[in-house]
């Protein structure tokens, strides 16, 4: 290959002379050209400054002295001047390279894209997506039809009697039999919760989510919601972790890395832990509340209010400036079926990999707790709190489940509801409290890792009493008003 002199962008006089004097002073190894190191220094890149300080002991001072000198020549930050020069260079190059045929007719996709971002039509489309995608498909079909079938037919009529039969014949001790097929049995509780209740809900959610994400709707939603989010100290950028949170809050907490400021990341992490129910939890709650429009509306209203209120207060309390927002809006595309299925499959696989062991451990733990009487003790501690917010004492067991996983707790409510022990106002109160209630163990682990131990513990210490306080208030208001649900 012939030696070609590589392309160089030429900057303004003072910048160029600073670049060459800095380059001459640099001795260390950086893995990139000295010119680039000098450019980054002029743009006050903290990481590069640190490296230069480490590697250039004596010359560091002289290098440092160059910066204010160059800066004094300009009214804008140097990073801005440099970026403008570079953009000019790009435009010059492209002038002779690119030809665009004028295509003023952008067609249906463009029209739809605008409608999605327009405040009025955008909200209508959003409600459509929520109603058909979340409520009808995940709530009614996934959490209703599919769960009914798998729970009552597959487990209720086929698997549980069959396994109980086997257990009864081969396991002589009642205690050991209970480990597999008892009230907290591995099969009758762990496996059947995971497969009969959680799988259909999470599965249907991931199908919808994969379709939505591949269509390019999410960045448009981000644009639409940006203004509301600004009020709670977030930008439209937070939409993606939030929406993802409706799938799994643990994953969503990891995705907060895409946010610009530490402040934004903390607020998002807090709101994910508090007010965004994950898909399994959401599905179960939709299923138990969907019978009554009022109950569902109260639940949605309270959670939304908490979300906005806590976000607003947090944005006032946590110091730092508001974020700027800039996001690529990719074209709307028709999702590819194969990609949607692959993604749903790999997400389910991941989810199950994480969830199933938890359910099984929880079963063993509960069985042990039941056996030793520890379960009764812990439940008796929780009982006063649970009764205080107007719930039947049996509900405390569901909250105990909630310590293990959010969805597990919601599944516990589902059981109580189908047994007729939890209906009306207490049901709504329980649903609200368990939604706000502590993040699951996996989410807590990720919070520790991403936000540090202090923030993670502070968030948890806030969320836990806050959830019960809101539950208490909702109960108080509903009973005082004499609302019958």
């Amino acid at each position, binding site marked *: *290959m012939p030696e070609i002199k*590589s*392309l*160089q*962008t030429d900057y303004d006089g003072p910048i160029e002379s600073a670049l060459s004097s800095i380059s001459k002073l640099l001795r260390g190894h950086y*893995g*990139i*050209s000295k*010119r*680039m190191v000098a*450019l*980054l220094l002029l*743009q006050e*890149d903290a*990481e590069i400054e640190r490296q230069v300080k480490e590697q250039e002991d004596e010359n560091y001072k002289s290098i440092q002295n160059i910066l204010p000198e160059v800066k004094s020549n300009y009214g804008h930050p140097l*990073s801005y001047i440099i970026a403008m020069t*570079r*953009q000019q*260079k*790009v*435009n010059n*190059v492209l002038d*002779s*390279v*690119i*030809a*665009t*045929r004028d*295509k003023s007719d952008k067609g249906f996709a463009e029209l739809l894209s605008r409608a999605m971002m327009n405040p009025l039509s955008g909200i209508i489309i959003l409600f459509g997506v929520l109603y058909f995608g979340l409520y009808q498909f995940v709530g009614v079909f996934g959490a209703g039809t599919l769960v009914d079938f798998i729970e009552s037919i597959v487990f209720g009529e086929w698997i549980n009697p069959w396994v109980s039969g086997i257990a009864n014949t081969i396991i002589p001790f009642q205690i050991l039999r209970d480990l597999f097929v008892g009230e907290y049995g591995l099969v009758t509780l762990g496996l059947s919760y995971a497969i009969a209740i959680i799988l259909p809900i999470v599965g249907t959610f991931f199908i919808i989510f994969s379709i939505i*994400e591949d269509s*390019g709707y*999410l*960045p448009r939603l981000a644009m639409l919601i940006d203004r509301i989010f600004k009020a709670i100290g977030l930008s439209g950028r937070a939409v*993606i972790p939030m929406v993802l949170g409706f799938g799994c809050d643990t994953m969503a907490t*990891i*995705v907060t*890395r*895409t946010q*610009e400021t530490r402040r934004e990341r903390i607020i998002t992490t807090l709101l994910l832990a508090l007010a965004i129910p994950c898909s399994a939890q959401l599905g179960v709650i939709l299923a138990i509340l969907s019978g009554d429009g009022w109950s569902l509306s109260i639940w949605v209203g309270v959670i939304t209010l908490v979300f906005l209120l806590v976000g607003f207060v947090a944005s006032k309390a946590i110091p730092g400036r508001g974020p700027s927002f800039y*996001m*690529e809006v*990719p*074209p709307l595309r028709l*999702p590819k079926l194969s*990609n949607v299925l*692959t*993604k749903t499959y*790999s*997400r389910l696989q*991941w989810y199950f*990999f*994480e969830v199933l062991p938890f359910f099984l451990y929880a079963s063993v733990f509960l069985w042990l707790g039941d056996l030793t009487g520890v379960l009764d003790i812990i439940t008796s501690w929780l009982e006063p709190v649970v009764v205080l917010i107007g719930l039947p004492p049996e509900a405390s067991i569901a909250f105990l489940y909630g310590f293990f996983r959010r969805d597990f707790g919601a599944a516990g409510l589902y059981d109580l509801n189908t047994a007729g022990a939890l209906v009306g106002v207490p049901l709504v109160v329980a649903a609200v409290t368990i939604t706000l209630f502590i993040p699951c163990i*996996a989410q807590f*682990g*990720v919070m*520790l*890792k991403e*936000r*540090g131990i202090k*923030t993670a513990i502070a968030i948890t210490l806030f969320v836990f009493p806050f959830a019960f306080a809101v539950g208490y208030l909702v109960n108080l208001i509903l009973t005082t008003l004499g609302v019958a649900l």
Partner: protein
Amino acid sequence: MVSWRKIINTISLGAFGDGCHEKVKLTDRDGLRKIGIVGNPNVGKSVIFNNLTGAHVTVSNYPGTTVDVARGKAKIEGSEFEVVDTPGMYSFLPITEEERVARLLLLTEEPEVILHVVDTRNLERMLPLTLQLIEAGLPVILNLNMMDETESAGVTVDIDKLETELTVPIVPTVATSGRGMDALRKRIIEYARN
């Protein structure tokens, strides 16, 4: 799938870490020669990665799907490479955490070839990063991706001319259908040999 597994690892191994990503461990694996994939978010880096390595990293139509670094192996004309997919970066001057991770990778791992994947419809927003990579003295191949959408938007690009202007090899592709992937592999191996 790789990234999901990574997330599980993150959860199980790092649950008690110090909450700091500056120390992302970027280990040398087997001392293979490396191909680094960089570019703006949502230009198809992960699809190119999947095509080169035969892996199945989750691909989505929104920016920021890859928040971690994905790694895989590619065999091109008998030579084995380690391919490294980075989170999106808009500029060599990082603003977000993921941009920092992407740049740190370029600085510490010094890949043999850096594949800058761009959305060809928006060259005026994509090329500033190419210029920076060239300025940094890095071994860049510019990959003009999404050529199909570019063509249907009525945009034509004089590739030969752009190549002379930028002084780096340029390869047009449609990663989702595989168009141009053979040419891309060829350019990579040519470049790595020089």
